């Protein structure tokens, strides 16, 4: 009876979230395109692109919450999967430039002509076709996560060690992508995009469509995560998070569960990156910087670990604050604020915004209902994740 009530309350949160995202995904593009420019209700194009960026960050945060909040895997290298997805999309966009580049080479992107390359490297083949690029957006991060996870989880690298080697992974990729001879544009990365599927990436209509797509992807990603965590598989994941050895002794193949959820999460991060690149118009190696991945983790912590809705909310709140503060006179103090946010959230708000709200909601419900319900609610792990590692 109690679990039923809690699921319902969670469902309510999830429903509100989905409705809000869907409404934004429809209303913002419509207002941008249909209302006259300068009208009070019209959303300017730069804001559409900005919120599209937030939506991509929210998907990344969802991906991190899926593994960290529900399976206890703290990846400090999820920015790498995000960036790989972004590079796959960037490669497609580069090949769409065609002869409109500075050097006008129909096959080779500008930076290859600049480096005196004679022909396209093999790993650039196929990226002139959208379906192939879209597939690679999922396959490349997924494959890397699968190989990495297969090695790591099988030899039971857990906790902090895993965090540190994921950080080493993204750092190694950062160094590699900075190299010119690696074939991804080196320091400058990929930029100067023109078309996506025949539409101009700079055009208002394309931007609005990309924003709507990002919202759609956020909704789909959220539904996938919800489906995973509320299934029986999700219960095992939570068991792994709270007591890994015990779950193993009960006969579950812990590493397979972890590997599955890690790979799914990496694919989601890849999609987020792929949607991010056409909206910001550039992808470069700094996306691999370990700091970015850690920042993404803090979005989840701020919003509420193990709540999904909170992760997405945290991504938007923190990034909105970042945009707000870094563009004003307070810019030099932004890092102070971000740093303080890290410290204060971990010390004072370990459950994050949504987690704390849920706890408060439960508590006020408790007062109204009987004491037996209260004791049962405390045992549930979904709304109140135990943060002990």
């Amino acid at each position: 009876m109690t679990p039923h009530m809690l699921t319902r309350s969670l469902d309510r949160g999830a429903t509100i979230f989905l409705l809000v995202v869907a409404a934004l995904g429809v209303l913002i593009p419509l207002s941008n395109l249909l209302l006259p420019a300068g009208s009070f209700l019209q959303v300017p194009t730069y804001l559409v692109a900005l919120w599209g960026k937030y939506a991509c960050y929210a998907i990344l945060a969802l991906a991190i919450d899926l593994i960290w909040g529900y399976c206890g895997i703290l990846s400090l290298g999820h920015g790498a999967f995000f960036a790989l997805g972004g590079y796959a999309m960037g490669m497609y966009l580069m090949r769409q430039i065609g002869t409109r580049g500075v050097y006008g080479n129909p096959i080779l992107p500008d930076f290859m002509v600049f480096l005196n390359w004679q022909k396209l490297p093999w790993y650039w083949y196929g990226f002139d076709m959208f379906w192939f690029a879209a597939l690679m957006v999922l396959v490349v991060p997924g494959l890397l996560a699968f190989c990495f996870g297969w090695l790591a989880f099988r030899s039971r690298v857990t906790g902090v060690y895993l965090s540190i080697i994921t950080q080493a992974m993204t750092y190694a990729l950062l160094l590699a992508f900075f190299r010119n001879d690696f074939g991804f544009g080196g320091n400058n990365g990929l930029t100067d995009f023109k078309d996506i599927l025949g539409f101009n990436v700079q055009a208002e209509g394309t931007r609005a469509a990309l924003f709507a797509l990002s919202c759609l992807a956020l909704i789909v990603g959220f539904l996938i995560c919800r489906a995973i965590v509320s299934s029986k598989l999700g219960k095992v994941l939570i068991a792994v998070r709270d007591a890994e050895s015990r779950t193993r002794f009960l006969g579950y193949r812990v590493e397979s569960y972890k590997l599955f959820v890690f790979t799914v999460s990496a694919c989601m991060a890849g999609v987020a990156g792929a949607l991010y690149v056409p909206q910001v118009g550039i992808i470069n190696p700094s996306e691999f910087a370990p700091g970015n991945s850690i920042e993404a983790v803090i979005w989840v912590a701020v919003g509420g670990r193990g709540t999904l809705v909170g992760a997405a909310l945290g991504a938007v709140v923190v990034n909105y604050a970042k945009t707000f503060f870094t563009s004003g006179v307070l810019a030099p103090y932004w890092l102070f604020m971000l740093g303080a946010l890290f410290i204060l959230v971990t010390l004072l708000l370990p459950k994050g915004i949504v987690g704390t709200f849920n706890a408060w909601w439960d508590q006020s419900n408790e007062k109204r209902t009987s004491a037996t319900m209260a004791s049962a609610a405390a045992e549930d792990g979904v709304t109140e994740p135990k943060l002990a590692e």
Partner: protein
Amino acid sequence: MLSLFLIAFALPAFAGPFEDAVAKFANDDFSDTEEAIGVIAGSGSKLAFPIINALQDGRLMADPDSKKVYVTGTDGKSIDAATGEAVASVPDTASAVRLNNRLRRSVDAALGSLTLQSPDLGTRLQAAQSVFKSHEETALEAVDSALAKEANKSVKAALAEARAAILLFKSDATEVEKLEAVATLKARGDQDALALLTGMGDQPASVTKAAASAIGSIQNSLAVWSMVQNAWYGLSLGSVLLLAAIGLAITFGVMGVINMAHGEMVMIGAYTTFVVQEVIRTRYPGLFDYSLLIAVPLAFLVAGAIGVLIERSIIRFLYGRPLETLLATWGLSLVLQQAVRTMFGPTNREVGNPSWMSGAFELGQITITYNRLWILLFTLAVFAILLAMLRYTALGLEMRAVTQNRRMAASMGIATSRVDALTFGLGSGIAGIAGVALSQIDNVSPNLGQSYIIDSFMVVVFGGVGNLWGTLVGAFTLGIANKFLEPVAGAVLGKIAILVLIILFIQKRPRGLFALKGRAVEA
């Protein structure tokens, strides 16, 4: 000689051959200039070197009207070239004595032979080395006469090598002379000798054969030396890694606290050095050579105090929650970086090397810089002191007790929270000391710490958490492996390869090289 100058000054009509030669510069005629160079170089006058040197640099001014020649010093003061008397100013009609390529060679040769017999040892050695490099036939006579007079052993060897280089390229040298020359170059056995031997051109058969065997033996010894060089670079990098990681080995390895702000402690140590040097520069410039000795204890205290503060205010609430600690300390690192950026500015700050840390010396074929050598020794000293401290002091005993079994230690009357704070302070303080050393070889900027944090974690994880010896072995292994990979794969790929190898290594041995065994593992 001085009296001669005085007479010459008083009675220009009775000028000697030196003064006549000097006056020839004013004729603005290349053959007169050449003659003058020859006479002056052979005159033995102490003005000979400044005059020829000035001629080479275009600082020798000749006045065609009065036939007077002046040497303008690099400091802007001028002297009369014939007498050495200081003059107030050079007349406007004077212009620099011109040279052509042929004359430049005679100037070089004259300078070479003048400096070969300079009273200063360093100048003589340098001159001999420059003759070795140029191996101009014209210098042979000067080298021979210098060789006859030379008493110093190393200069004598350098002169002999210079002589060998000249003879090897001299077309009319006898076969015996050339064979001797090849033997001398073989004994020298470095890259320069190799270049001379491979580029010597047509020679008699016996000389070619001797040269071929000399080339082979030089190449072998060079290969060995390049291994030694790589090993030295590796040790040097390893010592830097160890220094950066050793504090982390305490906070992470012994206490289990993931301190992402560790790099910022290193940075604070470096900035402490900067402040100490600034104070010394402005107030007590004489103490500059002691600046690092003053900075080391100060950096330890500053970083250690900040460490204790962090432990008391943040970390102690997060024990047993390593991932939360990681996030909080990452936030802390952002705050510290930004604080330093606000206080000292975002650009690199200048930290100087004391005299005993600058320069280098040659060991066989490799060059060892003093700062790298001192850092290696310093790192080993810090390591030994730390080890001794953990082993022999009361605080060390308490630290080990608390890490091995916190509750038991508490039951025995150890104030565990005090020990926690001091341990964290110790780790941070050592990071601060590392900052003093790293300020000598790296840019002191707010981002200094970030560049070391990932490497430091790699070292500690690779070596095995909770084991200081593991950190030592880990740091030197990674340093040496990195430097041996670098010539093969390039610097960046080498680093990537190391990262990938560590990731794979952790799969094999998830707890590092020297893993703790038993119950502590699961704690």
